[in-house]
């Protein structure tokens, strides 16, 4: 992969740690020099709307803190000591050793190191997460893969109502908790059971029971897809890929898709949809006064990761009735991954077809607009890109200022918002997004 200007993700270890520390009562044991855990936490923290240390994250992370002599002579002895003492000090249901660039390069055998502890009452597993192996999204994939390989049992008889949700990446999809909560609550209304793994109601039992699920859903067209494919073989769980449904229309579409993959009582589904739509549009009803009187329709630019870009664009086009013009996907993707997104994007029925652009470099995102500015400020008749609105990250601040656009930060990194249980998925999430988008327009009043 080539160099990147202001990348919006960290490394494999960074993604793995964000994921592991978001799991219920799971304690990572970082086998790295003293800085990796702390710095990568800060990376996730700073971009995720301040997702805090949680149970055992941040500078609470047990870490072998290896030094130069360990790099020269091997660090497994220090790791064994650290695992032993971690089991004494830390109260967790599952311990996961994660490696780092230096320990992978010097080939420390972390898989071997955890063997010593295989009789331990609380399991200790190992996942190789050397930072140079990829970005934080791949770190998420490696954790899911590692859990299914070494922790989640393959159960023959599946629970026909149980669904696992994947593809919403802790920290790097900053609204992951709120999104997952809403999806779960909708699916539960349909009589399904849901493992989200990362919401506050989850316990280690949800992780354990993942092997009994009848269906895996991935809300990412890219991340976790290959892992779910292999789980389909190893654990006999079929999977479906969908966009994260944002708003009423997208959620209805998703639920209809879902009903093709898992048995849902059709009558209940229709009842729930009728009820949810009625409530949803009663809220929209009361927002329409402001919206219509103010002519709040905007031209829009979406800047987000591979997971968020398309769902946000769909919401803007289909629900809000805006004119999205450009959709930037900021992840460093392989050609085949780009192709998946292009094909998916082209298959969508978006009224005003925006342009899809892959761009990892932050400064380049604004470039085309600087070139297309009117030559003279005194020009009287210019069909400007205005009123303009950007759904992006906090990094788009300068770009937004340069084209006089409004900005709501929805994608990583978000440093100008604290995100607690906010989510944009589902019905409630759609209303929240509507509200947050408009609040930027009226915030100065």
């Amino acid at each position: 992969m080539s160099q990147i200007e202001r990348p919006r993700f960290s490394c494999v270890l960074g993604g793995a740690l964000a994921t592991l520390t978001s799991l219920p009562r799971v304690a990572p044991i970082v086998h790295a020099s003293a800085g990796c855990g702390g710095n990568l936490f800060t990376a996730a923290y700073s971009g995720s709307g301040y997702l805090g240390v949680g149970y055992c994250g941040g500078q609470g992370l047990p870490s072998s803190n290896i030094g130069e002599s360990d790099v020269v002579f091997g660090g497994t002895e220090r790791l064994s000591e650290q695992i032993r003492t971690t089991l004494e000090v830390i109260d967790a249901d599952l311990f996961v050793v994660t490696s780092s660039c230096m320990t992978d390069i010097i080939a420390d055998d972390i898989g071997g190191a955890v063997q010593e502890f295989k009789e331990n009452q609380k399991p200790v597993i190992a996942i190789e997460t050397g930072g140079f192996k990829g970005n934080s999204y791949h770190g998420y994939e490696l954790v899911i893969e590692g859990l299914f390989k070494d922790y989640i049992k393959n159960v023959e008889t599946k629970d026909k109502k149980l669904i696992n949700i994947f593809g919403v990446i802790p920290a790097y999809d900053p609204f992951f908790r709120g999104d997952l909560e809403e999806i779960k609550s909708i699916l539960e209304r349909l009589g399904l059971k849901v493992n989200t793994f990362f919401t506050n109601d989850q316990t280690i039992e949800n992780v354990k029971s993942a092997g009994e699920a009848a269906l895996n859903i991935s809300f990412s067209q890219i991340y976790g897809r290959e892992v779910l494919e292999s789980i389909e073989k190893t654990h006999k769980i079929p999977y479906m890929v969908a966009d994260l449904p944002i708003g009423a229309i997208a959620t209805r579409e998703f639920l209809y898709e879902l009903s093709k993959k898992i048995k849902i009582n059709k009558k209940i589904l229709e009842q729930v949809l009728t009820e949810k739509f009625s409530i949803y549009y009663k809220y929209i009803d009361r927002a329409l006064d402001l919206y219509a009187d103010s002519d709040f329709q905007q031209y829009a630019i979406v800047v987000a990761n591979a997971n968020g870009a398309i769902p946000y664009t769909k919401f803007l086009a289909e629900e809000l009735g805006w004119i999205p013009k450009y959709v930037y996907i900021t992840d460093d993707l392989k050609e085949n991954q780009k192709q998946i997104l292009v094909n998916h994007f082209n298959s969508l029925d978006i009224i005003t077809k925006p342009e899809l652009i892959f761009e990892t470099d932050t400064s380049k995102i604004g470039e085309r607009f600087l070139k297309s500015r009117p030559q003279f400020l005194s020009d009287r008749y210019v069909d400007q890109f205005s009123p303009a609105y950007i759904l992006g990250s906090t990094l788009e601040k300068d770009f937004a200022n340069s084209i006089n656009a409004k900005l709501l930060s929805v994608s990583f990194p978000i440093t100008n918002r604290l995100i607690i249980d906010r989510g944009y998925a589902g019905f409630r999430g759609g209303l929240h997004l509507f509200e947050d988008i408009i609040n930027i327009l009226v915030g100065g009043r």
Partner: protein
Amino acid sequence: MSYVDNRIPPVRETRLKTGITFGGCAGELLDCSQKGCLIGCDRSFTQTISCQLFLALQMVLTIPNAVTIMHGPVGCGAQTHLVDFSVRSGSQQRGIKRGPLIWTSTNLDETDVIGGGEKKLYDAILHAEREFAPQVIFVASTCTPNIIGDDVDEVVNSLRNQVHAKIVPLHCPGFKTKIVASAYDTVYHGLLKYLDLELKPYVDFIPLNPYDPTYEIEAKKYEYKKAHTVNLLNASSIGAPDEFELIRLLKALDLNVNVYTEYTRPDDFRLFTQAALNISMCNVHDDYLLEYVEEKYGIPYMIHNMPVGIDNTKQWLLHVAERFGLEERAKAIIEDEEKQLNVALEPLKKQIKGKRVLLSGGVIRVASTAMLLDELGLDIISVRPYHYDNLSDPIYKKFNERFPNVSVNVASNQAFELVNILKREKPDICLAHSASNVWIAKTGVVSIPLFSPGANYFGYTGAYELARRIARAVQNTSLQKHAAENIKLPFNQSWYEQDPYHYINQKER
């Protein structure tokens, strides 16, 4: 030969007698520091902290018209998103106009680990030059290129003639040192080697003509100005309000003050040698830079503790004044300042008197702030320096005289030891390093950041501001109380029954 002549700076472990592990009282710590038994002392259970890369970045990212290249995998430096805002507001407070913080990552992957990352770095430097035309390009070299053997200096040197920007390599692999403060040396090493610290004739000034009739008077004016100019050395933990307070006090002595090295425009580094004295604000920041500058340019320096605390500020200011024969004037200023401050502090002191306090963070900062809080009438129960080295001895000797029984726990955060101590000591308030405060809050104790670039801690106004903040904080601790009642910490119950220093061992590593 000086350290600066070497390609790579030394780490603090080799340059100083230094350690990150100790539990006891200040007297024992001083004894241990003398004997060198802090060296090689470690823990068998450790928690992650940070590394010299992060601190080095926090320093250089403040410099305007610069681009920083992280030479490493994409995670190294990813925390820079958090720095963007503080640098913007720090620039704004200092009147510096600037755009976004620009940094790139060479994004080393598996192929590079095998084949080397030099080509990518070469391209990244050219890219930075072409896209952003900066005055300085910093190259932060991380763990991976150092293990795989990339020759960063060679790449940089091969490009010097093709690139307008000054290219400054910063050697900051995290695994080489557990002392985050090594970053000061790393950054200064790069600045000293690769930036101009002297004025350029016809660029920065027109040389005086000896045949000009005004020559003598102009030369005297120049000499006078230089003889009354001081450089004040800042750091990322020292914010603009602190700089302003010290500038205020130094200006009261009729000194001209220039502030370095953070937020310094690249061209302004050439003014660095136009001063009569370099003044540090902290014992463990600047000796690497200042000793070299004294040796090479003949500019003396002063490192005398941190001007946090009423007496510490007095001593600091007197030491500066002494260098210029201005003691009497300084004494008058100090008397006046203290008089005003004491009147202002009176009502606040009543509110915070006797509050039991724990301090956790930078080695000089915790000791100096403890002295301030003692002056304010608080009860110091424990200090936790991030690391300890022999540069800290002078202040800890003073500390030991004043607080012989206060426990000293040398630890780079190590939340597990912190929480154990909190549960035992139950302080009323803590002053703590960033990333420690959350653990204190979860234990039910209110805390105030030990440092914060947006707030004032230094000098007389700093003493007042801190007293004011403490008085506010102790008024209502409901959030922390309810949080502690409802949030489970990740430690086994048995840990709280153990000695907090249980995992400290003396083994040679």
